[in-house]
């Protein structure tokens, strides 16, 4: 491929450094650095002023934007790891052709996600107690374990894709398989983190564990389509046409399954008005989250990308729009599911109860400016790391074993 100025590295870290003059990475790195600056200020405000002073979460709504954005990033990462696992472990050569980008992006997005949870937790340093007095029954304990293991596996994958050696083929397959497996377990366990909340019926059942995995894979495909369009300035090399086409199909299939899951989740939450689920779904369909749901989740994450994929499956530029639309819409998907599930207040907002709710009896929440700044930090981490890798490493997979 024509983007690297010199040949692929042979060995050693220094030899990995290259300069890809044709890849338009600088605008993204600059935007990333700006977002890092904004997010850094937000992080400092959160650390020095205290979360209570700068975040809008409350007793009624303990989890807000940052849990949503944590899910947004880390689930996209495990979705990418899933696609990478299909390549390495199951021989999907179309994805193997972009395996470097998959692994680098999965690492960058996972690290972006860790910034969100790191700044959401009030006492992240006390996580050491998870190893001294672990509660093995707590889903959050396993969330920490699985995502940590996933990061280690991704770093091993990173090593393997940048130090290709035929003797590593079997090892790559094993590591790729475990990246897929642990990623899927981590994400489905994240669904269980919510599903284990006794007070929140909206989160109960298999729905979120399934939905998060499927939407994560879809997001991974969307991100790969977007990035390849950026890197190749819309002119996808012919050898990658089938990869992009296959990713579009994967995305379309993912959205199709999401529609199926959406439909039955909504139906089962509406019919007979089960307490807790009904109020949450109504908050999305016709309540405070209705614009998020109809415009963000339905229009941007479902209908627009699906229509584009069905009508323009061979047009990379249109598929890029589908990917961007999906990733914007997915933000609302993640945000809504966190917020909607907590909206039904747990006690009546009566005088003296201390409960604060709107006239419909739903908890009130709107992210603070500092919460948005921390979200910007996540994007800053991803854009800076990933596009620096695009600029200074050779992410083209010349040969996939």
């Amino acid at each position, binding site marked *: 491929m024509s983007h690297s100025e010199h040949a692929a590295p042979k060995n050693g870290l220094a030899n990995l450094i290259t300069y890809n003059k044709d890849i338009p990475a600088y605008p993204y790195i600059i935007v990333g650095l700006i977002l890092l600056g904004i997010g850094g200020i937000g992080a400092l405000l959160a650390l020095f002023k205290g979360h209570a002073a700068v975040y809008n979460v409350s*007793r009624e709504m303990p989890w807000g934007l940052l849990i949503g954005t944590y899910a947004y990033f880390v689930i996209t990462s495990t979705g990418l790891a899933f696609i990478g696992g299909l390549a390495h472990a199951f021989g999907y050569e179309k994805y193997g052709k972009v395996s470097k980008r998959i692994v680098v992006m999965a690492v960058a997005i996972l690290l972006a996600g860790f910034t969100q949870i790191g700044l959401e937790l009030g006492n992240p340093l006390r996580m050491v107690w998870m190893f001294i007095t*672990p509660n093995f029954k707590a889903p959050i304990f396993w969330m920490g374990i699985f995502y940590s293991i996933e990061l280690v596996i991704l770093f091993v994958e990173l090593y393997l894709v940048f130090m290709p050696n035929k003797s590593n083929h079997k090892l790559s397959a094993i590591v790729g398989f475990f990246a897929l497996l642990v990623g899927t377990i981590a994400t489905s366990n994240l669904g269980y983190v919510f599903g284990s909340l*006794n007070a929140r019926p909206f989160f109960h059942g298999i729905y979120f564990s399934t939905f998060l995995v499927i939407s994560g894979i879809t997001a991974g495909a969307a991100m790969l389509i977007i990035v390849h369009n950026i890197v190749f300035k819309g002119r996808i090399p012919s050898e990658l046409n089938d990869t992009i086409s296959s990713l579009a199909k994967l995305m379309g299939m993912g959205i199709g399954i999401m529609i199926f899951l959406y439909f039955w989740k909504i139906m089962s939450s509406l019919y007979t008005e089960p307490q807790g689920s009904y109020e949450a779904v109504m908050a999305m369909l016709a309540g405070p989250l209705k614009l998020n749901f109809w415009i963000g989740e339905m229009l941007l994450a479902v209908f627009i990308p699906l229509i584009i994929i069905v009508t323009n499956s061979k047009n990379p530029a249109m598929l890029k729009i589908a990917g961007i639309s999906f990733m914007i819409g997915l933000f609302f998907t993640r945000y809504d599911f966190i917020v909607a599930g907590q909206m039904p207040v747990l006690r009546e907002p009566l005088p003296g109860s201390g409960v604060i709710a709107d006239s419909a009896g739903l908890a009130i929440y709107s992210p603070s400016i500092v919460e948005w700044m921390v979200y910007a930090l996540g994007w800053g981490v991803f854009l800076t790391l990933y596009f620096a890798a695009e600029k200074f490493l050779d992410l083209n997979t010349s040969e996939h074993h």
Partner: protein
Amino acid sequence: MGNNKRYAIVLDSSKCIDCKACTLACKMENDVEIGAESYRIWVSLKVKGSYPNVSMEMEPSQCQHCENTPCQSVCPTQATYKTPEGVVLVDYDKCILCKACMTACPYDARFPSHHHHAIEKCTFCYHRLAEGREPACVETCPPKVRVFGDLNDPNSEVSKLLATKKVSQMKPDRNTRPRLFYIIG
């Protein structure tokens, strides 16, 4: 303190005069900070009927010290734990402030404490029990709405009340098996 005790509170809400002595005593005893969302116990006012046939009911409440404990189940560090007597407590030093316990509690009984830099809740004034004293909210209540005692002691007042009175528990559909019992009628 022996391990054969099972502490509980029986409440007779009909006696409540909404004097707020319990909420104040709780704040004073436990150094609960001031703030709209910082409270361990509360008294909800329920208005029933319509003018001119209106009545008001008080519903004092707090952490239910559930036997099946949703907040403890989701705590990754065992910061939330149960004493042998079934009192649900928080080891503030272990709390990572993930707020899973707040999200899991069906009774909205937990909140972030800036003093402790942790999530806190009603402790049944556990520090007083070893001295043979009752929780502050129980001790201070003029009409004796709350009765505190040991369910394993058949001669305790709580056991006698439960044996003779009809009681209900909050949100039985959550299967939490609370240690707070409300006398009905």
